[in-house]
């Protein structure tokens, strides 16, 4: 299995960051309603930020390049 190499083409960092943040916000809301953590937990703030960074990384690195033939 080869390691994922950074793509040399143009990525989608803005799209990844924006929708990473949105995904983090909605996921946080879902986890709150499933009583995974409380409303005053730091995860309410941390999880959207984490997903923003994950989205940014996905948009830059484009690890799903195997779909591009």
């Amino acid at each position, binding site marked *: 299995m080869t390691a994922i190499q950074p793509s040399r083409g143009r990525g*989608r960092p803005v799209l990844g960051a924006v*929708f990473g943040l949105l995904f983090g916000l909605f996921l946080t809301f879902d986890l709150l*309603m499933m009583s995974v953590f*409380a409303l005053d*937990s730091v*995860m309410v*703030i*941390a999880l959207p930020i984490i997903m923003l*960074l994950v989205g940014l990384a996905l948009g830059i690195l484009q690890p799903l390049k195997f779909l591009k033939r």
Partner: protein
Amino acid sequence: MTRRGMLSFVLAICGVLSVVGVASAQAAGSDGSIPARLTGPCQVTATINGTGTTIDPSSSGGVYTVPLSGSANYSGSIAVPAEERFAGGSVWVVTPPGIPSFTIKSWEDPVAETVGDTGEVSWDLPGALPRGIIFTVEGVHNDTATCTGAITVKVEGGITDSPVGLASVALTLVTAAVLGFAAIPRGL
């Protein structure tokens, strides 16, 4: 910064935030062993009608589940002389770090003479309200002595019991799909 360096930086930040979040959740007792607390010369209890659930912040009660609509009989007292004095306080919902808490109720009486109160309170929350969210309610009563207390509650029901919950799940899936699309190189 190279892309590998940027990836390492991003993963390091994610790792730190994840550890802080998990540690915070465990410290708060979100595994269910959440202690209630009451300090000062006060006694306060509330019994939810119909369910028989008694809320007593002076004992460990975990997460109290309240119905969407109902009523409760409450009783509160403070061990101070029943003479004219200033008394006041407030009750608020604790919010995440960095977000101001919001006050549910506050009271103030510059010439208070009583040392206790009993009564009934009722509520009827909207059906669209998201269910299952655990939140902490804190309160303080300033009198000749000061009392503070906190309980942890949630509204009965789960994620599928309100339209807001269903919409959130749908939007989670949609944003996840777009996030996956962002991981595909241009020109596909």
